[in-house]
């Protein structure tokens, strides 16, 4: 009888441990997911009829970006609230695909009067980033605000907001055909984890 009871508890605890290991493995290795994944949704094609200038003074336009996967966002260098957090998250994406020339990042300044090429150059070198892989761009203000709309991201000037501007903290993911494939909250580590995985999926789409 005693034997039976211990056998039973032993079996239960073994089962519990197996379950626990299973859960742990599933959590640790998302790549093990065996079910075939749906392709990422398509939120429409972006047309950007403007040319901006990056921190190295190089022109950046749609023609240069086509055929590449890229992440777009809007910020300004003196932003006191969410931008530094967005830049911390953008750095994670930058580091995750450091060696891939298939992915570029494009951060648009919504305060182009202050954020001149010189100011963006200083900002970029403080972040320690390469202008080939991560463009910090400035340009004509109305064109930048219109571009934000085209990416499905909002930006507007508001004297009452901290720093003088209100803008979306989201990142847009654009594929090689210039189609938006996802929106991610740029201040949320988990959403940026998903973005990093989704970039891999776009790279695999070929």
């Amino acid at each position, binding site marked *: 009888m005693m034997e039976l009871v211990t056998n039973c508890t032993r079996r239960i605890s073994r089962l519990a*441990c197996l379950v626990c290991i299973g859960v742990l493995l599933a959590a640790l290795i998302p790549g093990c997911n065996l079910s075939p994944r749906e392709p990422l949704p398509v939120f429409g094609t972006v047309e950007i009829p403007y040319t901006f200038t990056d921190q190295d003074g190089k022109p950046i336009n749609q023609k240069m970006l086509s055929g590449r996967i890229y992440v777009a966002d809007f910020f300004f260098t003196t932003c006191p609230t969410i*931008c530094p957090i967005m*830049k911390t998250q953008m750095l994670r994406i930058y580091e995750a695909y450091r060696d891939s020339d298939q992915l570029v990042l494009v951060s648009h300044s919504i305060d182009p009067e202050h954020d001149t090429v*010189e*100011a963006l150059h200083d900002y970029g070198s403080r972040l320690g980033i390469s202008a080939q892989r991560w463009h910090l761009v400035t340009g004509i203000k109305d064109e930048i605000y219109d571009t934000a709309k085209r990416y499905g991201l909002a930006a507007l000037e508001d004297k009452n907001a*901290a720093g003088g501007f209100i803008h979306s903290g989201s990142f847009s993911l654009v594929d090689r055909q210039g189609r938006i494939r996802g929106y991610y909250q740029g201040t949320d580590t988990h959403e940026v984890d998903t973005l990093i995985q989704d970039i891999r999926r776009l790279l695999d789409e070929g």
Partner: protein
Amino acid sequence: MNTERPIRAAALALCAAVLITAVAGCSGDTGTAEGYLNNCSPCHGRDGEGLRSLYPPLKDSAYLSQQLDQLPCLLVNGIASPFGSTDSTPRMRMPSFAHLSSDDLYAVIAYLSATWGTAGKTVSRQEVEAWLSECR
């Protein structure tokens, strides 16, 4: 049987580790951290680590040790960006926190001083008031 024990021990250890991290992640911040988290952490980081060369770390800042008396007015004045001026190398701007009440400033300073300041030194309300009178 012999091989089973170590496996079970390892699994238990793993489970325990997972539980401990989960519980540690749940423990809330104390009220005093609030002012820091709302006003300063976007730039200086949750743990005062800074962001590369954009925003300096606060952990080892002299403003939390020898220059603590200058911290209140640094926050009230902010640090201006000399872009456009011809002198000095460009610096990043730190906004002014003049809009914060003396209570709020005291809460932030007390938190910083207790968290990363010189060990054992607590800052009093009166001291901060006196330092603030230099610029208010």
